[in-house]
């Protein structure tokens, strides 16, 4: 219904408004280049707020929190490090009555937080920002009067590199107006193209899309028990609604998580934290419940639990395949590989479940690696089929064999069948090998992969052809 209404309204208005409307309601906060951007450039109105007293250490976190409170004025709030926010308020003007009211409303929001702020409104991002930094509490609505207003500002409000500002000052340039009178080419040569671009952006000659602040959501729910819970079984029962809520929360946002944390609160002791990792991003209730169950099952409660809190990790978008409604119907199984891996890891530990890949490397011990990110379809580097045979088992450390000459090995019941294959590599990283590898057969049975260290002439067992 909403979108239809919007479309009708847009159809009635002029073309430029149509573009603006689309840009406003569109999904992407950044205006793209081209005709649409040109139309947007004329219609945007930026409100800048500079917070001079923001503590530097927590600036980023505080700006994020300020963004959240600023989002009730407009959907496009952007952070300008280190201490400013930019709000695109053009679309909100009508809603709040007039620009004066809106501007005053936003200013009041900072005052309520007891946060000193310099604010200004201008049609361009940098224009508004520079005005705010200079402490000019002005509202400029059209690009025509922007250049005049900016010309009065001192050059320090551009926040360019101090060296550049010093260069300008030594040239006698003190205000932006002086800067604008200088020839472009010379300015670009002295200060670099970035400064010229900044000026163009400030004067609305150049479009400058901003990245909108998107709040990072997480699921977090607490649950307090009337009586203390002492056994894990009851805990498993009590956690079910939390998991249900979490799954619903994720479903509503079409998102999944890869980590969960459960905090169990006790009366005296510090809370117990149970961290759960998932093999892939998921929002399915069953999978979350499975993994948490498995973890809880092995948990020994240090003290009775008074309450608990379930927190999700960062929300991540679900891929198309994880939303596949028919995924469970294919094949004979009821689980997916990810579920199996998660269940195994929940009980045996992260490191106990892994895959192996080949690495293009001549040294046998370095030619493979464990991988903990298991994804089907991922192919390690191909191992040439024409290479000499390799044993299925590789010993963690080569085992020294008695004797230095082949006949001595034969006395020990070992016959060299194939070889030698000389492997001489790795001098560059201090783990160099110079070895001759042979396929050897024990007199009754096993086939071994042995090598002779070329320097010491001693023999080692390195693998078993099982």
């Amino acid at each position, binding site marked *: 219904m909403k979108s239809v209404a919007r479309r009708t309204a847009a159809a009635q208005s002029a073309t430029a408004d149509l573009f603006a409307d689309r840009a406003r309601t569109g999904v992407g906060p950044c205006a793209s280049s081209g005709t649409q951007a040109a139309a947007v450039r004329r219609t945007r109105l930026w409100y800048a707020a500079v917070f001079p007293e923001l503590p530097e250490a927590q600036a980023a976190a505080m700006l994020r929190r300020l963004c959240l409170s600023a989002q009730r004025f407009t959907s496009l709030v952007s952070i300008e490090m280190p201490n400013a926010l930019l709000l695109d308020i053009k679309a909100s003007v009508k809603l709040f009555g007039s620009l004066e009211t809106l501007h005053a409303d936003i200013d009041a929001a900072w005052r309520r937080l007891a946060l000193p702020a310099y604010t200004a409104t201008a049609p361009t991002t940098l224009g508004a920002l520079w005005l705010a930094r200079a402490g000019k509490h002005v509202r400029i609505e059209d690009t025509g009067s922007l250049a005049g207003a900016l010309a009065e500002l001192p050059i320090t409000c551009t926040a360019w590199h101090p060296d550049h500002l010093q260069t300008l000052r030594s040239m006698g340039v003190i205000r932006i107006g002086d800067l604008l009178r200088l020839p472009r080419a010379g300015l670009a040569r002295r200060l670099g193209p970035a400064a010229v671009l900044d000026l163009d952006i400030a004067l609305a000659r150049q479009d400058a899309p901003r990245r909108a602040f998107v709040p990072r959501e997480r699921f977090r729910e607490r649950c307090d028990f009337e009586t203390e819970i002492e056994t894990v079984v009851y805990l498993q029962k009590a956690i079910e609604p939390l998991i249900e809520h979490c799954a619903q929360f994720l479903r509503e946002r079409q998102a999944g998580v890869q980590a969960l944390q459960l905090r169990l609160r006790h009366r005296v002791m510090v809370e117990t934290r149970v961290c759960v990792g998932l093999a892939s991003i998921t929002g399915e209730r069953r999978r979350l419940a499975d993994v948490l169950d498995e973890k809880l099952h092995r948990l020994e409660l240090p003290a009775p639990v008074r309450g608990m809190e379930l927190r999700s990790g960062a929300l991540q978008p679900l891929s198309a395949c994880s939303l596949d409604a028919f995924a469970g119907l294919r*094949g*004979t*199984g*009821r*689980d*997916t*590989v990810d*579920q*199996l*891996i998660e*269940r*195994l890891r929940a*009980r*045996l530990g992260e*490191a*106990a*479940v*892994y*895959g*192996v*890949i*080949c690495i293009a490397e001549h040294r*046998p011990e370095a*030619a*493979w*690696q*464990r991988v903990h990110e*298991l*994804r*089907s*379809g*991922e*192919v*390690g580097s*191909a*191992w040439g*089929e024409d*290479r000499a*045979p*390799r*044993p*299925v*088992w*590789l*010993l*963690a450390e080569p085992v020294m064999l008695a004797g230095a000459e082949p006949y001595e090995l034969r006395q020990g019941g070992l016959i060299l069948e194939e070889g030698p294959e000389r492997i001489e590599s790795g001098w560059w990283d201090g783990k160099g090998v110079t070895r001759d590898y042979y396929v050897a057969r*024990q007199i*009754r*049975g*096993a*086939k*071994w992969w042995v090598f002779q260290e070329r320097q010491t002439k001693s023999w080692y067992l390195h*693998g*078993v*052809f*099982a």
Partner: protein
Amino acid sequence: MSGYFVAVKTWMLRESSDSATALARILADARVWKLKTAAVSSSPVWSTGRPALDARLPGGGWPTATLVEVLLETPGLGELQLFLPALIDCQQRADAPSWIVWIAPPHEPYAPALAQQGIELARLLVVRPASAAEALWAAEQALSSGVCAAVLLWLQGSDDRWLRRLKLAAEEGGALCVLFRPERHRFESSPARLRLALTKGEHETQLDLVKVQGGRPGPVECRVSG
């Protein structure tokens, strides 16, 4: 086994001179267990890559959805060579689960060797449990998950109850389930449908079928290691 046949034969001769009708009557008796028909099962079999061995196994290959037990005198007698052709085959089937899980292998599975043989490493999972109980649990999970084409498990001890659980999980999941155990367990009872022993022979590894449901036990003349 042969003693049983002799008994049937003498009884047959004594009872009737007409051997054909006598045989039909014996076969119709519910108490007589018929060797050939018992072996026919619906689950697929995987070729061992050795015609001499295939011929001795009911269905012509490694049975799936049941427990196969391999008793080893020492590790490294070519036991994996026996199963590699089957593992490669079952990974190449497009319409079926294709993951291979190795639980508690005695050494590190060497990736280049497996890739060289044709195993798809992207669908190979290695599990290293801390104890035998956890290894069995992991095997049970892997088998009953239904995503595994084959589960290979190395164990030292013996627990009849666990082996039965393993067999049930294998029947549920339909995968090839191979259990490697030391040869000292040869004379213990086992629920496995197929048991074979690998021992050091005079020149080569000796392969013995210890127990074959629906087949004839005994030594097999075939080259084990490649």
